[in-house]
């Protein structure tokens, strides 16, 4: 069996939309389960007394990373067919910074705002309206900033390629960093929790 199934023609575009809906249900379910339907719980990450955002995010990254690595090694997944967003380093660095500031001010990111508005949060509805407004403004100024947005292009590129090290070594390093991060995050939670 060769995957990704869609890329190998197991089903078509119409079916892919139903798949999208089904995957979305799983995504939303676990976001809410984790407590990410609550802006206070999400913002707590930045005040160090509840590091769930880091723990959930990095556990998910490690799980999926180990999964694609294993399936790639046994030959079930053609990793070259999995879409990589191209790297435009400077715009993405600035974008991350702006998004991080927006996260603390707004209390959500786009995905968690959907989970939150679905579970009754009025502020998440207002936040989503803010995304629409921001998208409109972005579209209007896009011609003026287009050159910057498309600058610093590196193409579709992974960390093992850039640093010229084996894929498995980077996977191993990410797992070590994540485990150390989980230990550190819990230590910080206890420390901050003990102070307040």
């Amino acid at each position, binding site marked *: 069996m060769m995957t990704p199934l869609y890329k190998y023609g197991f089903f078509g575009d119409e079916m892919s939309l139903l798949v999208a809906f089904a995957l979305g249900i799983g995504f939303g379910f676990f976001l809410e389960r984790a407590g990410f339907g609550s802006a206070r719980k999400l913002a707590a990450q930045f005040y160090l007394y509840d590091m769930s955002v880091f723990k959930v995010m990095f556990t998910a990254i490690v799980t999926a990373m180990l999964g694609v690595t294993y399936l790639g090694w046994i030959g079930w997944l053609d990793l070259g067919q999995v879409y990589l967003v191209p790297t435009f380093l400077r715009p993405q660095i600035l974008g991350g910074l702006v998004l991080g500031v927006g996260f603390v001010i707004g209390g959500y990111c*786009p995905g968690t705002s959907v989970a939150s508005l679905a579970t009754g*949060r009025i502020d998440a509805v207002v936040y989503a309206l803010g995304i629409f407004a921001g*998208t409109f403004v*972005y579209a209007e100024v896009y011609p003026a900033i287009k050159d910057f947005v498309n600058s610093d292009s590196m193409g579709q590129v992974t960390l093992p390629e850039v640093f010229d090290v084996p894929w498995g070594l980077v996977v191993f390093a990410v797992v070590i960093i994540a485990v150390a991060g989980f230990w550190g995050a819990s230590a910080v939670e206890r420390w901050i929790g003990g102070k307040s």
Partner: protein
Amino acid sequence: MMPPRRPYMNPYLAGIGLGLVLLAAFVIMGRGLGASGAFSSTMSWLVNAVAPEHAQANEYFQGYLGDGSTHPLKAWLVFEVIGVAAGALISGLLAGRVHVTVEKGPRASTAARLLCAFAGGMLMAFGAHLARGCTSGQALTGGALLNVGSWAFMIMVFVGGYAAAWFMRWQWR
């Protein structure tokens, strides 16, 4: 009747669940999860419905509208995000966590909180467009694929968040 309000899932278990959904997306679709793109498609459709000449003259909206042969809402991420809302609602109902409320700390007024929510959403839209994805499409998806831009983006999200946290303390604590 709502069931009693239950505590959240262990973060590592929720993370494994989320990771398996992401892995399923890679294996079934050959792409990761996302969120911000659904807002872009919806906005392009809205502007096109209200002011078609304006939308079609704009390079950004044009990118989402295409040649007009496919409805802009018939997009993968739009369907996925509708699923996100449904999945969150299912989880929230099962755990007794669906309440109409405004999330804020004890010191913030509702009006100030809603103003910040709107401003934060606007900033988020800019950040996600500059980065070509948000926490889902870049950090989560690209993180698992060891994508260079995604890791640079993810580190900067935490830098930006911690840099701004002190100034927004009144809203949350």
